[in-house]
């Protein structure tokens, strides 16, 4: 939770800095296009769902019962590649709204240990999921922090997403939601004002997410990080 607060606070500070310096832009630097599409490939970090014991009620002469552990489990979602497509619309002065659709295929792995009848053996059980994410973000370009002669343009973004998790057998379809905040850099290879294709370049970004519901054996919100790199085109 502290990490999330720190992230949000950092993002707000950057936003304030961007607003204060927005008046001082250089005239020759590439400006974000009215409409921008991008595609990226990245990695969504893993998530630990925690440990859980299979317990029985222990026998005893006493009136209260203790637990007897039949076996111990630990479950996590492993990091996985993610492909995304994005469409951004500029609202003016560096601000844009962005919609994105992403797909990744993480493995959920449960490790079973300390089985009362196989104590020395570790079992690894898994299940592959398809996670579809439909997100909306507000993106703020930090023009005052441009670098490389104006070709490098940092940005911050924040938003939310609707998640849809489906297992390979299509027995599970879980919905969830996430909130994210992050930052990144666009590097312009092409910037011109009088053509249909106004801009093109590379985009690199990182983010932190808080995810609730969806596939979630732990039943509580969990945090994960991620990063992506790709290309963008401005029109």
């Amino acid at each position, binding site marked *: 939770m502290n990490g999330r607060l720190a992230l949000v606070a950092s993002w707000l500070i950057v936003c304030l800095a961007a607003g204060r310096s927005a008046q001082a832009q250089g005239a020759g630097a590439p400006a974000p296009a009215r409409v921008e599409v991008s595609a990226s490939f990245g990695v969504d970090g893993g998530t630990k769902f925690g440990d859980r014991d299979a317990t029985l009620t222990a026998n005893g*002469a006493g009136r209260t019962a203790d637990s007897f552990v039949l076996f111990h489990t630990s479950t996590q979602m492993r990091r996985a590649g993610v492909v995304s497509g994005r469409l951004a619309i500029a609202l003016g002065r560096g601000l844009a709204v962005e919609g994105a659709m992403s797909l990744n295929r993480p493995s959920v792995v449960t490790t079973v240990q300390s089985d009362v009848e196989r104590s020395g053996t570790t079992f690894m059980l898994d299940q592959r999921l398809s996670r579809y994410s439909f997100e909306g973000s507000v993106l703020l370009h930090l023009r005052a922090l441009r670098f490389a002669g104006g070709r490098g343009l940092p940005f911050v973004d924040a938003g939310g997403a609707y998640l849809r998790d489906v297992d390979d057998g299509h027995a599970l379809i879980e919905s969830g939601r996430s909130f994210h905040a992050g930052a990144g850099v666009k590097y312009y290879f092409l910037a011109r004002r009088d053509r249909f294709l106004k801009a093109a370049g590379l985009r690199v970004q990182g983010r932190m997410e808080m995810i609730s519901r969806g596939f979630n054996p732990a039943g509580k919100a969990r945090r994960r990080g991620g990063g992506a790199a790709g290309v963008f085109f401005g029109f």
Partner: protein
Amino acid sequence: MIARKTLRGLAAWLALAYTVGVVSPVEGYLKFGTRIGDRIVSLRWNRIPVRYVVGDLGVVGVSADQLQGAVDRAFRTWEALETSDIRFEFAGVTSAAAVQGDGVSTLGFTNRPDLDRVLGQTSFFIDTRSGEILEADIFFNSAFQWSVAPGGEPDRFDLESVALHEIGHLLGLGHSAIGETELRPEGGRRVLAAGAVMFPIAFTAGNISARELKPDDMAGASDLYPNGALRGRTGSMSGRVTKNGGAVFGAHVIAFNLQTAALVAGFSVESDGGFTVGSLDPGVYIVRVEPIDDASVESFFSDAARVDVDFLVSYYERLVIVPGGGGTDRLEVKVTGK
């Protein structure tokens, strides 16, 4: 002490097994069943509420009124299951001994010192053409020391706990194998832990923790007497257990819910090693398969010779997703010999 290794309901199961001789493969946890033609039908009550009378004999430490109170609490515990429609009706007190076939289900104390390992026993009268249970009598063996104290009493068996187990049989449920035991130096087995009221070996005298139903008990009762309005809320899993490509009969299949930690189990009881575990809450499950090595195989199967206990505990290689109102099938759990 003899009571520590008491088997509950074993004689009832054997008696029923001799009469009926099969176990229903319809769902996982064992249910009493009967063969009608080429079908196996679960034994169940069709006339609900199930009416019962209680004997008017008390024993040292438990009066007749206290017997009735303990039995009533046990019936109410089964009735309280949200996912089951089973209902009971108290029809009075009787001084008559239970008579099989009189149509009256009677619960009471009977002195059976000859059954030195049996705390209680349930016997049935069924319609073999339909599988309908017409009558079930339960006796509690007054050769043992009993208690109805709210917190239990040392060296006395808790009557409500044993009544809860026997009423499970009355419903048509067989024994659950969710439990661990150890061999006693003087013979027999001692229960280390249990995950179901229907486990065939009682907790130590003085222990009252079997007054509460466990998920496996709830799943069994909900499967036999489902609440129609809630049936679409639960799901099932099915598959087969194999060893070297061949079917394994009598393997104990445990489904562990990763979200709720509930344990619900069944057995591979079909000729191809097939199993089904039903009445499961939707969610993500681990499937563990073990040989029956606790209590005795005869506590669970009349056809004990067919039961394969020569394999190691194994887990299905995937996490299993159980959807609400549906099922996940074709799971194949491969086990290896010891």
